[in-house]
C-alpha cells in the first residue's frame, strides 16, 4: 500500500514534468547547446585530423572547446542546475497554494510518499533528459565523424551520466528544500536562483579576492607562493558544486588527466603519457564525487524532515 502511493505520485508527477512548458524550453535549450558544441568540436577534429589524438575521440566531443564556444560539459555545469531548480522550487509550496495538499494527504498514503514521489519523478525526468541529449550527440557523431564509441568510452560516459544526474539532483533537492521552507513560490524560486548564481559566478570572484588577500602575488615571487595562491583559490572554489562537478567530469571524460592540482613542468615531462584506467580516474575525483552525493542527500534529508514535521495548515 505504501509503495502504491509513491508510484501513483511518481507517475502523475512524471507526466506533469514532461508536459510542463518550462521543461520544454529548457530541454530545447540544452539540446541545442548539445548539437552546436558537438558540431563545432567535430568540425575542429575534421579540420585538423593530425593534431587530434585518436584515442577516446568520442569523449572529446563532450569536453573539447572551440574558439567560439566552451565545451558541452562546461555548458552543462551552467544549465544542469536550472533543470534541477525548475522541478524543485515549487514542488511543495505550490501544492499548498493550489489547495491540493490536504486533498492528496487525506488519501490513504503516508506523508512521505508525496515528497519521495516528487523527488524521484524529477530525478527520473532529469535522467531521461540527459540520456536523450547524450543520444543526440551520439547520433550527430555518427553522422559527422562516423566513429563508434568503444567499451571504455561507454563506461566513462555512464559515469559522466550518473554524475550529471547527481549534480542536477543537488539543485533539485535544494529547490525542494526552499519549497518546503517558503510558502510563496516566488520566494523559493528567487532563493534557489540566488544560490545558483552565488556558486556559479560569485564564488569565483570571491576565491580570487581571498587568494589575492591571503597570499599576495608580488613582482618577485617564488614558485611556492604561486602554488599556495592556487591552492587557496581551488580550495574556495571547491565549495561550489559546479567546481566539484566540473572537476569530476573533466577527469572522467579525459583519461589523460592525472591530477587536479597545479603540476610543475619538469614533473609533467616525467609522466608516462598513457591514459588512466577508469578506476584510476575515479580515484582522483572520488572526494568531489562523494561530496556531490552527500550535498544532494543532505539537502533532501533536511527537506524531508521539515516536511514531515510541518503542520498541514499553520494558523
Amino acid at each position, binding site marked *: *500500500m505504501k509503495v*502504491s*502511493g509513491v*508510484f*501513483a*505520485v511518481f*507517475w*502523475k508527477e512524471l507526466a*506533469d514534468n514532461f*508536459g510542463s512548458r518550462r521543461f520544454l524550453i529548457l530541454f530545447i535549450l540544452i539540446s541545442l547547446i548539445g548539437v552546436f558544441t558537438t558540431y563545432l568540436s567535430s568540425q575542429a577534429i575534421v579540420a585538423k585530423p593530425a593534431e587530434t589524438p585518436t584515442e577516446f575521440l568520442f569523449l572529446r566531443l563532450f569536453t573539447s572547446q572551440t574558439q567560439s564556444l566552451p565545451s558541452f560539459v562546461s555548458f552543462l555545469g551552467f544549465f544542469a542546475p536550472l533543470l534541477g531548480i525548475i522541478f524543485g522550487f515549487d514542488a511543495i509550496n505550490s501544492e499548498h497554494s*493550489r*489547495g*491540493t495538499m*490536504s*486533498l*492528496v*494527504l*487525506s*488519501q*490513504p*498514503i*503516508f506523508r512521505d510518499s508525496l515528497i519521495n514521489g516528487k523527488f524521484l519523478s524529477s530525478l527520473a525526468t532529469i535522467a531521461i533528459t540527459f540520456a536523450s541529449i547524450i543520444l543526440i550527440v551520439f547520433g550527430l557523431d555518427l553522422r559527422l565523424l562516423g566513429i563508434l564509441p568503444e567499451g571504455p568510452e561507454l563506461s566513462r560516459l555512464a559515469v559522466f551520466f550518473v554524475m550529471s544526474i547527481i549534480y542536477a539532483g543537488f539543485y533539485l533537492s535544494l529547490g525542494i528544500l526552499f519549497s518546503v521552507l517558503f510558502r510563496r513560490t516566488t520566494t523559493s524560486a528567487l532563493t534557489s536562483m540566488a544560490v545558483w548564481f552565488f556558486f556559479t559566478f560569485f564564488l569565483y570572484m570571491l576565491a580570487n579576492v581571498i587568494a589575492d588577500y591571503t597570499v599576495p602575488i608580488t613582482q618577485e615571487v617564488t614558485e611556492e607562493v604561486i602554488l599556495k595562491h592556487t591552492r587557496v583559490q581551488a580550495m574556495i572554489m571547491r565549495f561550489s558544486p559546479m567546481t566539484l562537478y566540473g572537476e569530476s567530469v573533466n577527469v572522467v571524460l579525459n583519461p589523460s588527466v592525472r591530477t587536479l592540482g597545479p603540476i610543475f613542468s619538469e614533473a609533467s615531462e616525467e609522466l608516462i603519457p598513457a591514459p588512466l584506467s577508469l578506476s584510476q580516474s575515479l580515484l582522483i575525483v572520488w572526494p568531489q564525487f562523494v561530496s556531490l552525493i552527500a550535498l544532494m542527500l543532505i539537502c533532501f534529508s533536511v527537506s524531508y524532515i521539515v516536511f514531515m514535521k510541518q*503542520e*498541514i*495548515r*499553520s*494558523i
Partner: protein
Amino acid sequence: MEWVVETRELSKFYNGVKAVEKLNLRIREGEIYGLLGPNGAGKTTTILMLLGLTEPTSGRALVYGYNSTTEPLKVKRITGYLPENVGFYEDLTARETLRYIARLNGIPDKESSSKIDEVLKSVGLSEVSEREVGKFSRGMTQRLGIATVLIKHPKFVILDEPTTGIDPEGASHILDLIVKMSREQNITVLLSSHLLHQVQRICDRVGIVSEGHLVGEGSIEQLGREIAGKEQTFLEVQVEELMPNIANSIRKIEGVKEVRSSGNLLSIRCDRDVRRQVSKVIVDSGTLPLQIRSRDYTLEEIYIRYFQRG
C-alpha cells in the same frame, strides 16, 4: 457500536495558543452532523485531527474504532475528506483527477474507470469529464470535490465548508448531493459550516463549537428548547393603537427584561410566560391586543446566544 466517530478530551495547541480544548464529539452511524462555529473556532483543526493530518496535543480521536493518530492510513481509507477551499491540478481533466485519487487509494485503473463514470454522473459532471479542471467554475470544482470523496467508497465523509463561495442554486445542489449520498449509501457525514440555514436544512444533529469547546449539541429543536428553558423567550404583540405609556407599564411586569416598540408592534423579551399579564396591561391602557405571538428560536438566534454565553 453506537458512536462511529468519537473524540475524547481532544486538545490542540499551536505554540501554546489554544485551537481546540477538551473537545468531546460523538457522531452516530448514518447521521449528518453539523459542526457549527465562527471562523477560528477550531473546526478545521478538529477535522485535521480526526484524519490524523495533525497530531493532537492531548486526547484521542477515534473513527470507526481506529485511532486517528496511530492508524491514520486505516482512518483515511474509509474517510472521504473535502477540504475547505479545495484545489485541483488545473491541467488535469476531471476524469484524470479522479483516476489519480483512485490510484492514491490503491484502486487499479481497470476497476476505477467504470466507477469514475458513475461518480461523475451522480455529481452531474459527465458532460465536462474531459475538460481541464482549471476551466471549472467554483460550483463545478466543489462538485468534483464531492466526486473525489465518493470514488473511494467511504463510510464516513468530512466536508469542510462545502458551500462557501457558491451561488445559492449551486449550494442547494451540493446540499442535495450530500443528503442523497448519506441516505442512499448510509454514509456518516460531518459537515462543518458557518452557514446556518444550510446546516438547519440538512443536519440531523448539530454541535456548536466556540473557542475550541463544544458549547452545545443536539438537534436544532433540542438546542432551541434548551436555550428557551434556561433563558428567555420573545413575544411579539400587535396592538390596535400604541398608547404612549404602554411600554412603561409592560416594563413593570415581573419577568419582563426589555420592551421595544415600532409602529403598533411591541417586542418583549422576558424570562417566563407573561402573555396573560401583558394582555391585561394592554386592555387596561385603553386599547386592544390584536395578536400575541411567542416567537420560536431560529438557529441564528440559538447560535448567537451560545456565543454570547461562551
